[in-house]
């Protein structure tokens, strides 16, 4: 199929193979080059410093945005998980929010005092860490359960089955009122507590100030909690990408049949992609439950899945840094920019007397903006802002690839069905001459 053509035509320098045989993406090569420039290195260091100290900066500069920044981090984590399924393994999952819901509800059911599972003899009940591990395991299980029947499906049919699954899960949570209280939602979900006695560290993330700092510091442990989980996820995903299973994911993405012929086990590879993607979503779901302290079925609908997909596609399928950028842009726009921009436009509108601008509310247009982002990205830059080089090659239209391939392999020769040009005839003749010379030289020996 077209994918095979695409993989053959390597863009120059698309994939660098290091001496250990591991693939290193072009972005990382570029990053390495960028870091040689001291200005860039300083800028990147500054960015890292901002990320590491953001809660303090937020308080110091009086930004009051930390309650927006933590959900942004959460969405980025979810997008990273979706990237495993869609970006690495190429399985379009339109029901990813279902795993997020499963993780959040698992944590809620295992920790909330309102939960019907709140039995006196359950020793671990209410412990966030236990609930988080359970959310991880249950989400993997859900991923495999969904993955198993879809193994035979490809492309758009797979997308529809995952979409159906993503629709069924909220319906179940909404209607199973005995378990989840349906529309009323579940509240008072357990929050993590860190108690390291011998270091004298003992604080919970339950919303009280830490280290004797002001009220703002209630968000501080959550920020670092998400940051640590994010760092672990990035580390783990990067290792996975270069691992045997990661390469198998990319192989089935490029050509399932060829991968299978090369000995890639399609069943375990696909299931591991689903399980891996779902597990991250489950963990984030548990963290979401603890952070918001409330779960409601409406948080896990189709639009959540599509916004995450939007982030992955905008940033660049299959590239961790791209996905982080995409998730950041989408959520930054949704949570911070839209509000600020609305105020800005309204001000301009009132000053210039333009009624449309004075009353516009960008928050009401978010679906339009996300939809338009998806369409425009597909039309203009299907590989995303920071593309993964191999993925970009696959997404190039078929005809262009074939043409590029022919030209790359035989410069000066015309493609099939094209009249030979004088230049190509000349090139062919000179090639024959070279061959004849070679032959005559061999005869002489």
């Amino acid at each position, binding site marked *: *199929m*077209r*994918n095979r053509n695409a993989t053959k035509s390597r863009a120059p320098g698309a994939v660098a193979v290091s001496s250990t045989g591991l693939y290193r993406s072009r972005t990382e090569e570029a990053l390495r080059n960028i870091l040689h420039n001291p200005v860039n290195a300083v800028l990147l260091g500054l960015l890292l410093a901002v990320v590491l100290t953001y809660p303090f900066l937020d308080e110091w500069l009086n930004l009051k945005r930390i309650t927006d920044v933590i959900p942004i981090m959460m969405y980025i984590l979810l997008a990273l998980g979706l990237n495993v399924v869609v970006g690495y393994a190429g399985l*379009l999952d*339109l029901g990813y929010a279902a795993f997020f819901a499963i993780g959040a509800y698992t944590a809620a059911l295992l920790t909330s005092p309102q939960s019907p599972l709140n039995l006196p003899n359950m020793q671990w009940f209410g412990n966030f860490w236990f609930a988080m591990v359970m959310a991880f395991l249950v989400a993997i299980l859900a991923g495999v359960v969904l993955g198993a*029947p*879809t193994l*035979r*499906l*490809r*492309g*758009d*049919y797979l*997308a*529809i*089955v995952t*979409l*159906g*699954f993503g*629709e*069924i899960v909220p*319906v*179940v949570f*909404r*209607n199973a009122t005995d378990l989840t209280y349906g529309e009323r939602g579940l509240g008072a979900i357990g929050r993590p507590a860190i108690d390291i006695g011998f270091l004298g560290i003992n604080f919970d993330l339950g919303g009280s100030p830490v280290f004797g700092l002001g009220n703002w510091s209630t968000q501080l442990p959550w920020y670092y909690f998400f940051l640590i989980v994010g760092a672990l996820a990035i580390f783990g995903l990067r290792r996975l990408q270069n691992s045997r299973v990661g390469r198998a994911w990319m192989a089935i993405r490029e050509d399932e*049949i060829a991968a299978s012929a090369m000995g890639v086990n399609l069943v375990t590879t696909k299931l591991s992609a689903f399980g891996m993607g779902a597990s991250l979503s489950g963990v984030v779901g548990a963290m979401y439950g603890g952070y918001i302290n409330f779960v409601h079925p409406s948080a896990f609908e*189709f*639009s959540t899945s*599509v916004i995450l*997909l939007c982030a992955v*596609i905008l940033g660049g399928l299959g590239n961790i840094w791209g996905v982080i950028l995409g998730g950041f842009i989408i959520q930054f726009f949704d949570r911070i920019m839209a509000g600020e921009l609305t105020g800005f436009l309204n001000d301009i509108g009132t000053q210039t007397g333009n009624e449309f601008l004075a009353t516009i509310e960008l928050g*009401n*247009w*978010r*679906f*339009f903006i*996300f*939809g*338009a*982002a*998806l*369409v425009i990205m*597909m*039309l203009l830059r*299907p590989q995303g802002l920071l593309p993964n080089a191999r993925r970009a090659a*696959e*997404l190039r*239209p*078929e*005809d262009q690839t074939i043409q590029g391939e022919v030209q790359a392999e035989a410069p000066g020769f015309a493609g099939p069905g094209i009249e030979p040009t004088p230049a190509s005839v000349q090139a062919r003749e000179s090639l024959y001459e070279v061959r004849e010379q070679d032959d005559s030289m061999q005869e002489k020996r």
Partner: protein
Amino acid sequence: MILRREQGGRSSLTSLLPALITVVGLIALIVYFIAVLGWAAFLQTFLYGLTTGSVYALIALGYTLVYGIIELINFAHGDLFMLGSFAALTVLQLTVVGKSPAFPLPPWIALFLALVLPMLFCAGLNVLIERVAYRRLRTAPRLAPLISAIGMSFILINIGLWWKGPNPQSFPALLSVFGSENIVNNLFGTNEVRFSYKELAVILTTIPLLLLLNFVVFRTKIGKAMRATAQDREAATLMGINVDRTIAFTFLVGGALAGAAGLIFGLYTGSSHFLRGFDSGLKAFTAAVLGGIGNLSGATLGGFLIGIIGSFSDRLLGSSWTAATIFGILIIILVFRPTGLVGEQVVEKV
């Protein structure tokens, strides 16, 4: 995939077995429903299902036409249907609703306009969508147009939200011009089962449209071009068919059906909502898949089946579970028989 009327014959016993199991299972289910509900309630549920099913069939045909010709799941189709219902509502509001509408017209003419104008509106909009969001992606990998279609669906949802606001919009009870007499009572003298002229009107509006579509696809020149394009786009080009125009025409036809469905469904259920397109669209897509996507008679059959299944699910499990039931069926069909009930087996080309 081919827009074909005839299906290839499958004769061997092993390939008949799944069909046999399905039929036996269906009969068992019907017997069970009759036992639980009783004859009257069973028939009633069935008739309601048939009525809504005819509307699903109209929407499902839009999905199946487009899939048949360019193998794209046109995600935006359900939302097009929603915009069609809004357009119909706007026409009705301008002509008959309230004490002094802007352009007062007799109900019959208003109904006719509310059928024709949304059909034209949706047809035009669908052609525009194809031109903007899909045409350039025709040679791209299959996921690219699919994602573009999801984006388009979101855009249409937002347009619907902007047009009529977030609250459900109620339609005028215009179908009562057909009379609310119970036909069953007139014919058989029992009021246990209701089937009024309202339901009959829905079915009697959809069936001519279905027949018209059948005529266009199988009896006209442009229909022949559509089938040729569906079979092999390149060969069709070589035979002098304007492929771009044929595909645009397919979107035009699908859009017109969605517009008609918008009016009929709005009047029958009495309301519309900007998110209606998403769930009705998904149900109609399920219908198209159930019948075998790309197959016209399959989509019609699937539409009626989904309507009936939904109606029984409403009755037995409660309407809040209906979406889950239908999507469950969708998953089961896609997993076990992706070609649908009447679809032909298509070997995936490498």
